[in-house]
């Protein structure tokens, strides 16, 4: 019997670390298949892309832990890009005063993050206060955001977003800069640094603060959480606000990376974020999840995307493979949960 228990413990460890194993296998696979994959330059590029899914995934992890979902993140990315691009290229014209205001890049950053937060608060308030289904609410704001992004420019692209010294609004390209460049080393993309910092903070908040445990409790059993005195509505609104802020940040980073603001930027990115979260072992039913898992999940998605591109796999097949990986991940997740339940039962019987 003891041996059996050891076996299930070993199995558990393997299952818990599954995404990490997948990541390692993928890494080795692409290193062998694509010559250009395992080079400093490509890896840094992968990191840059991973940061994109990862930062969106951090906000999404919180949302999914409460048992919700945020479909609006992709269009917030697009909308924020258009607003920031517009503010740099055209400024804010106040017709009644006949002046055009140009903001500095830090001010634009703050404005954009606040817009992201406001969209998040609207999502959260509709979900928590009006008891609407998260899927529907964020589907709605997804369309609204995308629509507004297109309305801003009539569907056109803002392409001169570098700013002008005379107007004091240069600097948005800082979001695509690299740091720690020494000698031949091209430096780490700033997005990756941001991702690292945010991931550490988010993991800390989730594990070590009452807020983190409160959202885990809400996702696990909202009724019990409420009766334990947890302010469920406030926490849910906060969670969507965080997701909105993460999306806004990615909006800025992406516009800098592509050096333009296009209204369709970020289309379907919410799906990448959700995929990263789910691959990371966060339960769509709520109550279970980690930031560390999401980070690994984001790397898996990133490596599949870039690795397959470097191998010359067509974009269409990439989608098929990504889909299969996600379904497989959830399948294994289910298997793990069953095993866990079995082990809990076993522990219960042994405690008798």
């Amino acid at each position, binding site marked *: 019997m003891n041996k059996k228990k050891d076996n299930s413990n070993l199995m558990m460890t393997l299952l818990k670390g599954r995404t990490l194993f997948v990541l390692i296998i993928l890494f080795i696979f692409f290193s062998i298949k694509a010559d250009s994959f395992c080079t400093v330059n490509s890896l840094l590029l992968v990191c840059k892309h991973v940061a994109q899914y990862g930062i969106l995934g951090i906000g999404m992890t919180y949302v999914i832990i409460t048992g919700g979902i945020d479909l609006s993140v992709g269009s917030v990315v697009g909308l924020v890009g258009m607003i920031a691009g517009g503010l740099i290229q055209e400024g804010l014209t106040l017709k009644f005063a006949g002046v055009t205001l140009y903001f500095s890049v830090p001010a634009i950053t703050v404005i954009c993050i606040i817009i992201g937060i406001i969209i998040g608060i609207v999502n959260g308030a509709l979900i928590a206060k009006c008891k609407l289904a998260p899927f529907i609410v964020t589907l709605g704001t997804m369309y609204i955001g995308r629509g507004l992004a297109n309305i801003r420019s009539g569907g056109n692209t803002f392409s001169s977003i570098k700013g002008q010294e005379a107007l004091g609004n240069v600097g948005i390209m800082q979001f695509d800069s690299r740091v720690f460049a020494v000698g031949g080393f091209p430096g780490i993309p700033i997005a990756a640094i941001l991702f690292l910092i945010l991931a550490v903070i988010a993991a800390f908040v989730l594990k070590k*603060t009452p807020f983190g445990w409160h959202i885990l*409790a809400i996702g696990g059993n909202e009724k019990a959480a409420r009766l334990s005195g947890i302010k469920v509505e406030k926490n849910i609104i906060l969670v969507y606000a965080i997701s909105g802020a993460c999306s806004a940040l990615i909006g800025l980073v992406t516009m800098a990376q592509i050096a333009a603001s296009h209204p369709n930027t970020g289309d379907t990115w919410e799906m990448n974020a959700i995929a990263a979260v789910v691959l990371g072992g966060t339960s769509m039913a709520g109550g279970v999840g980690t930031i560390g898992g999401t980070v690994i999940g984001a790397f898996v998605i990133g490596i599949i995307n870039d690795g397959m591109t470097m191998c010359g796999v067509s974009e269409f097949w990439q989608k098929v493979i990504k889909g299969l990986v996600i379904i497989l991940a959830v399948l294994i997740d289910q298997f793990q949960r069953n095993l866990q339940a079995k082990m809990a039962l076993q522990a*219960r019987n042994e405690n008798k």
Partner: protein
Amino acid sequence: MAENKDKDIVMKCRHMEKVYPGTKALDDVDFNIYRGKVNVLIGENGAGKSTLMKQIAGIEQPSSGKMYLDGEEVSFKNTTEARAKGVGIIHQELSLFPNLNVYQNIFMNNEQKKGVVVNNEIHKQKTKEVLERLEYPIDPEAKVGDLRVGQQQMIEIARNLIQDDLKILIMDEPTSSLSQSEVQVLFKIMRELNAQGISIVYISHRLEEIMEIGDHVTILRDGKYVDDAAVKDIDVPWIVQKMTGSNKSYPKKERDIDWEKQDTVLEVKDLCLPKKGGGWLLDHVSFKLKRGEILGIYGLMGAGRTEVFECLMGLHPEHTGEVYVDGKKIKIKNIAEQIKNGFALVPEDRQAEGLVQTLDIEKNISLSSLKTCCNKFVLSKQKEDEYVDAQIKDIHIKVADKHLPILSLSGGNQQKCVIGKGVLTDPKILLMDEPSRGIDIGAKTEVFDIINQYADRGLSIICVSSELKEMLAIANRVVVLSNGIKTAEFTDDEITEDNLVLASYKGHH
């Protein structure tokens, strides 16, 4: 077991075994179900009663062992097969669809059709009939999720009664959430079913009920068969002794305190709660609670017991009336505010409202007081450990490791965790809604000990219960509610079963 008795036995189970990974839930158990009788199956939690019933009802398959229905060997792959042979089960944990209405629940997977379309006219009519037979009229169109637990239980029973060819009906603790009058209705129904030749397997923790309704008792302990006997040959102490291996009953704790001289911690004046569609759920209820006192609130289902707690915890902002804590009038806003005001609630439904199943034991205990476990904004592992360990020790929760999942604990220990969570917020007033529901006698006694222990330390406790024996054992004073009206208040020697039952009917005309 003489052969000539065989025709009195509708179902025989022989050498039943069920092995779960790492444990034997059933170990070579023999069990007979007598035709047209109430067959009582009894044992503490984890004794294997529910496991045995799951094999009979086809929910699980035995690891080994044989079952004979009317002398013919049977095995059920699933509940549909068991049902086809006439075995029905009412689960301990209700298995209804809260999102559907009454008749949909009753006819789920048994739909009457008109061509390819469900025939709701027949559904409604038959639902009405069966509920009338139960003397428990509920609107067939009502949504089940809106009904009280007691009413839901009746739906569960009705669901089995619409089967024409029912031979055996298994009832797993059907009365754990019913009030005395509802229990009597149920017993009457059970006798009627017996008269129709339907055999009943009845699982209950309430020993007095078993003596009243049971015909034949089988006792299990730790997955093994212990004894069986006809109810007329035995008494309660015999059962208790067989179940636990020793003599246990609820000890009444004598407390020699002059309540007049104690401070009043809580005073509720004219608490009113309007009912949807007119009338009152609570109609001018007033009571006082002294320091260190255990106040019982007794009443039938729907008398307004739980509503009193819900009002006090801020779940019904629409209530009216005045509430004073330590002589100061307070305005009840929301739960978080009420916890700050010194209230703590141990909810009625442990699984649905008490526990967060995805969190471990430690977090379930510290959940309500995470903010006090903090240095600034960060959780202090050390503080949390210290509080939780003290709590675990204080109320004797049996845990091997506090980081195990909460569901790895037995029902009694889970309940203690919920109590621990409430107590950890350092309340002045502890509200307990059916604190011993669904836990075995041993754990019950322990829960009562915990309640007494905290009362001795000066915590004031209000305890809602539908079990008379429980009220008698722990309450210093009992308020009886009936139909939303406070009909009586008893102290000390006045707290008798007769008084309580009588008062609990007074609010009905």
